[in-house]
Structure formats: structure tokens, C-alpha cells
């Protein structure tokens, strides 16, 4: 350990000091958007799960409306925006991210409130959900801007390798078509060297994030969701840039020091949990209440999923030399959209590897693709692998759909079950 490192003695703290830098990184992202408008640079809206790297490679400034929707929720604007969208005719049951974005646009909200600017074009994909495509269709029509959508075939539990290969070809062809689309809309040329550099940055960013997750296997866990829920944003807004890599490396370094000193994010760690689903962005403090039972969330598939390079077929060499083909492969094997059989297997492995005592499953009332299969997932985890699970009903961005007291009571009972199991 260097003298400098020695001087920064790791301390118990619920949040890493390095994570404070997230505000600056995200601030720079929003500034970059403003700068792009001032400079007349092309901009694009992109849905999560779409190849944002390709936008950076073509010198197009990305904007992720889902990220903005979480800002609205954190600033307590989301309910108001959602209700504005409902007044426009969009159902109470539709995606709360979508409705937050509709309301924010209708209100002409600023970026600090979760607003977004009119883009040069929109990029959507149904890799995560159909809603993404419908959402951007609604907004592309409103703004009268071009919209390119990537259709991703749905992989199910009995999809064969033969099918997988032509699924991949279908995506690859669309990605090349998307390059043509961007060239036409922006006048920018596709530059292979740029693409390689962006891909390398994206790879490095993801790998550091995965390293951080590896540290979460340690007992006590050095990092809580106070670092990861917000910490994930650079993964989908800035894959391809160097700045967030530095932030993640700082987070890793600090966490590693904690591990070396045997210091956890909690002073006392009795229960290690997994949280499946999107957090309640309007009430992140809610998760802090787990600490009253010395319980800590040590793994979230949602925040891990966006460090997309997990498919062993996608090597760094492939990412650098065949970025489009690598992207096609990744879009088919995204953690967050695994078929049920793979999902069960991955959960079982994760529970074992991260020494997890119990799983909290968020039945997200306006994200049906995520909650579909959750009942079967729970049953398999409980019956086949004896893993305790609790399903909680809420919503990612709509505070009307979280019953705080009732949910907390459920969690308390769940923790009690975990406590009893530890005794026996």
C-alpha cells in the first residue's frame, strides 16, 4: 500500500466516498447534452438496452429518457408528470417511465426535473420490452423526428442454437441498416477507429463494474445499493466514454480497501439479500430501512445487467474487431431478459456465489415484462433450491403504487423467517 493510500484509511460508511463523484459525472452528461444543442451537434433519444455505443461512435449525443424519468422520480415530480400523461389518455396501467416522460415533455420540464430535449432522431429496441418501441413512437410523432427501431427476436427456454444464429444475423443486418440511417440523418460517416475506441471504453467500463460486483461477494459486503442504484447510470448513458471508467475505478479501489480491512457498508451484517427488479426511484431511502435489521442488498440483477459483457462468446477481441456482431450477440443475451429456465439457473448460481440469504422480488406493476415469470421463478427457487423469496408489489416511478407500511411489514416478517433459518 502506498503512503497516499495509507493516509486514506477505509472507514465504515453506508456510501462510498467515491460515489459522490457520480453527481459530477452525470452533471457532465447533462452538460454535454446542452453543449450539443449549442453546437448544433446531432442528438438522439435511446432506450435502455439499445446500442448507445453506436451513437457515441457516430458522434451523436445520446439522451436516455429512462434515466431522466428516474431524475423526475427522485425530485418528486414523477407523480405529477404521470397524471398529466393520464389526462392525455394514457392508461393508469401503462409504464410509469413512459408516462413520466410524456408528462415531462408536456410540462416543458428542465433537465433537473427529468426533462429531455427534442432529439435529432430516436433509437428504440424491443430487447427489453415492447413499451420502448411504443413510447418512442408516441414521442417521435409528437416531435416529428425520425425513429429507427431495432427488432430483437425473443429467446425462449427452448430456442435452439440454429435459431439463435439467424436471430443474431437479423439483428446484425439491422445494426448495419441503422448506421446507414444515422449517416443519412446526421451526415456523419461511420468511422471504424472511433467505433473501436468507444467499444474498448464500453468494455472497460463494464469490466470495472463487474469487478465491483465481485467485491460484493465478500462478507461483510463493502458496497450497498446506495452506491449501485445510482452508480449504474453511466453504464447506460455513457458507455464509450473514459470519464466514468475513472469513477468506477475509484469506487473499486475504495471498496477493495474496505474488503482488505474487513469493513462492510453496514456496521453489522446479519442478512444478505438480492433485489430483483427496478428500485422505487421516488423513494430510494426506503431501502435504507433494511438496515434496521442489519440486512443489506448485495446483488441486483438490474444494476448488474447493464454491464452487458457477460456472454463468454463475446471476447474483448470480438468487441474491438467486430463491434456490430458483438453487439448483436449481446442484445440476445442480456441478463435482464433471460428466458425463464436460464433466469432460474442464474439466480440459483448468484445466490450461491454471493452468499445470499433471501431474495426480494419486485412485482413491478407497470413493468409487466419484468414481473412476468416471477411467480415461477419464486416457486423454483423456493422448492428446488430452498432459497427464501418474497414478492413485493410496487412500481418503479409511480409512488401511488407503493404501500410503504404494508410492504415494510412483509419485509419484516420475511427477515424473521431468515432469522429463524439461521438459528436452525
Amino acid at each position, binding site marked *: 500500500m502506498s503512503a497516499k493510500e495509507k493516509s486514506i484509511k477505509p472507514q465504515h460508511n453506508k456510501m462510498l466516498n467515491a460515489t459522490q463523484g457520480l453527481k459530477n459525472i452525470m452533471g457532465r452528461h447533462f452538460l454535454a447534452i446542452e453543449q450539443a444543442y449549442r453546437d448544433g451537434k446531432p442528438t438522439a433519444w435511446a432506450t435502455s438496452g439499445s446500442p448507445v455505443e453506436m451513437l457515441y461512435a457516430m458522434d451523436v449525443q445520446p439522451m436516455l429518457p429512462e434515466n431522466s424519468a428516474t431524475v423526475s422520480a427522485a425530485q418528486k415530480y414523477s407523480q405529477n408528470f404521470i397524471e398529466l400523461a393520464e389526462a392525455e389518455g394514457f392508461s393508469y396501467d401503462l409504464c410509469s417511465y413512459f408516462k413520466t416522460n410524456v408528462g415531462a415533455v408536456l410540462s416543458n420540464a428542465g433537465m433537473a426535473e427529468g426533462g429531455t430535449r427534442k432529439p435529432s432522431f430516436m433509437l428504440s429496441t424491443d430487447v427489453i420490452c415492447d413499451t420502448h418501441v411504443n413510447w418512442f413512437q408516441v414521442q417521435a410523432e409528437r416531435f416529428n423526428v425520425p425513429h429507427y427501431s431495432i427488432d430483437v427476436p425473443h429467446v425462449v427456454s*427452448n430456442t435452439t442454437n440454429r435459431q439463435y444464429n439467424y436471430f443474431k444475423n437479423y439483428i446484425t443486418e439491422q445494426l448495419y441498416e441503422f448506421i446507414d440511417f444515422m449517416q443519412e440523418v446526421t451526415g456523419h460517416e461511420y468511422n471504424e477507429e472511433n467505433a473501436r475506441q468507444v467499444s474498448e471504453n464500453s468494455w472497460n467500463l463494464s469490466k470495472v463494474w463487474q469487478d465491483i460486483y465481485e467485491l460484493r461477494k465478500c462478507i461483510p459486503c463493502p458496497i450497498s445499493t446506495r452506491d449501485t442504484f445510482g452508480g449504474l447510470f453511466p453504464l447506460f448513458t455513457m458507455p464509450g466514454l473514459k470519464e466514468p471508467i475513472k469513477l468506477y475505478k475509484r469506487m473499486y479501489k475504495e471498496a477493495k480497501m474496505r474488503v482488505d480491512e474487513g469493513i462492510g457498508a453496514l456496521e453489522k451484517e446479519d442478512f444478505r439479500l438480492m433485489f430483483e427488479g427496478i428500485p422505487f426511484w421516488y423513494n430510494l431511502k426506503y431501502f435504507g430501512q433494511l438496515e434496521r435489521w442489519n440486512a443489506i442488498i448485495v446483488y441486483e440483477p438490474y444494476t448488474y445487467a447493464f454491464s452487458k459483457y457477460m456472454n463468454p462468446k463475446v471476447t474483448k477481441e470480438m468487441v474491438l474487431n467486430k463491434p456490430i456482431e458483438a453487439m448483436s450477440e449481446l442484445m440476445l443475451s442480456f441478463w435482464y431478459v433471460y428466458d425463464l429456465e436460464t433466469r432460474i439457473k442464474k439466480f440459483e448460481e448468484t445466490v450461491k456465489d454471493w452468499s445470499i440469504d433471501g431474495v426480494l422480488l419486485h412485482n413491478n406493476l407497470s413493468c409487466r415484462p419484468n414481473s412476468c415469470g416471477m411467480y415461477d421463478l419464486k416457486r423454483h427457487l423456493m422448492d428446488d433450491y430452498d432459497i427464501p423469496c418474497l414478492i413485493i408489489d410496487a412500481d418503479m416511478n409511480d409512488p401511488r403504487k407503493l404501500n410503504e407500511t404494508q410492504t415494510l411489514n412483509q419485509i419484516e416478517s420475511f427477515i424473521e423467517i431468515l432469522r429463524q433459518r439461521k438459528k436452525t
Partner: protein
Amino acid sequence: MKKIGIFDSGVETPEEIIMAAGFVPFRLFGDPTLQPEKANEHIPPTHCIWTRNLLEQAIAGLDEDIVGIVSSHGCDRTNREFDIWLECLNYKFMFFLNSPRKRDDVAFKFFIDDLIEFKNQLQDTFNIEITDEKLKVSIQKMNKIRKLLKEISEYRTKYILKGSEFHALVKKVQQYPKDDALHILETRLKELKESRVLISNDMKPILLTGSDIDDTELIVLLESLGFHVIIDDLGVGTKYFWNSVSENENPIEAIAKYHITKPIYSTKFPSYERYNVLEFLAKKYQVVGVINIAQKFCEPVLYDHPYLHKKFKELGIPYLFVEMTYNRESYSQLNTRFSAFAEMI
């Protein structure tokens, strides 16, 4: 005769391939008198009630002649729930067809690959051969059915055939052996040619759109309130027969082209083009109103509704949007809204 069950939120499944394999294509319909119980152990109650209804039936046991299931890429529900069907059912043939969301050349090429895979898996599972000749015969038969349905549909325009009867007829065709279906259609057409006007001119001609409504009783309800469903753009309706499959091309390519170019449904991209289909039908059939019915939690239709509302307002055609729960007891709650709309137009 053995059947292949079709779990499809639209009409994206190529029946011709199933027929050429020697099976009866049997589209699964909901049963609005049934409430999901077992299905609720697999799918949350805030998800599409229609697909939960189908799963409930599937868990209880489907038609005993069904030897396999094909589910076609439609909405997020049919896509994600296929794995649950794999969990709950034990058929040796279970296939998820990735009917593409887009409708361009790249999607067309991909769809051909997936149709070939569907054909190959049928062949491998049942040890049969699906030849081009057999496919061509199936295409011809289906085209004949489509032509007859299109002709019969026009008797709705002549106020000779009720919308509810036509709806029930399309449902039969989607479940019966096609030779039987042909016979039924030919007989009915002959009768219709000799029939006179049966429906009162006071009935209000409307265009019915929305989720793929499969309960004929709902249309009977609309008729009891003074509406005549003169035209629709539903899967249990015109989407099933509006176009034909080319008989002069490679059969798999012709089937792919047929599905990619037929009138668009809300599950495809860009779904807003569905409005163009609706506008065309509304003008051609001179409807006095449009009724858009969404099954509860039917996201594709819920997303399109505000756009359709705006466009029909611009067009000056009265438009009613209704969200319904899939059980007959709830229909009575819709009475008021339908009646108010009838008054308005």
C-alpha cells in the same frame, strides 16, 4: 384429426404450414365464463386477463386432439408467457414463432428463416415431410377460404348478415378442419345470395377495432344497443382474410410476404399505421362511429388509443374507447357507455 393449438394475440401464425403437416390449425380462444385461478399462480393479476384465461384452460386440459402448440410473437404477454406454457404443459411440440415486429425487407428475410425453422421442427418432431406441393395445396385452400369470407363479409354491408353471426363464422373457420370450414362458408354464401335485408336500417353502422375480441356475445350486446358492426379490423375479422397469399411464388416466401404486408395490427411497428387501415375502412364503409375496445392491460392497444382518438377527431368521426374486463358479468357495466355513444351518433 390431430390439431396444433395456436396461442396468438393476432393472426400471425401460418396455418398453411400446419395444414401441410397434416394437422388442423386450431386457434385457442378465451372462455369469458371462466375466471383464472390456477393461471394466477403463474401470472400476476395485473397482466392481460385474456392470456391468463387461455393458460387457465391449458392447465385444465385443452382439446384432446391437440398434439402441439405454436405461439406467435405478438405482444409482450404472448412473448413472455410462452416459457410459462412450457412450464405448465407437456406437449412434445412447442414452438415460439418470432413473427417480426417490423415489416421491411430485412424482417421479411428473417421471417422466412423462422418459418423454415417452424416447418423443420414440425417435420422432425412428427417424422413427416412437408413438401412444397403440400404447401401450395394448403395455400390454395386458405385463399379460397379468405375469398369466401371476404365475399360473405360484404353481406354485412348489405344489412343482410349480422356482425355477430359473421364473427362466430370466422371463429369457426379458425378452429374447424379447413374442408369443413369451406363447406360451411359455401353453404352460407349460397343462402346469403338468396336472402333479403334482415337488419333494420336504423341500426348504426360502426367500425369495431381494438384488442382481438373473441367473445361473440360482446357483439351481440352492441347489436342489442342499436349498433351494426358493418366492418372491423380484428384478427377474428378482416385481418384474417383481407389479403391472399401469392400462389405463384416459393410457398414459404409467399406466406412470409402475406403476413408482412397484410393490414397492420397494434403489436407491429409502426403501429400508428393501423390508423391508415381504420381510416380506409371507416370511409369505404361509411361508418357513423368507431368503437375501440381494449382488454384490460392490453398494452399495444392502450398505447395507440390517444393517437387514434386524436386522428378520428380530426377526421370528424365519433370515436369511443372502452377498456373491458374479460368476463360477461362485466359487460353490463359497459351498457351505459355504449348507450351514451349510440345517443351521441
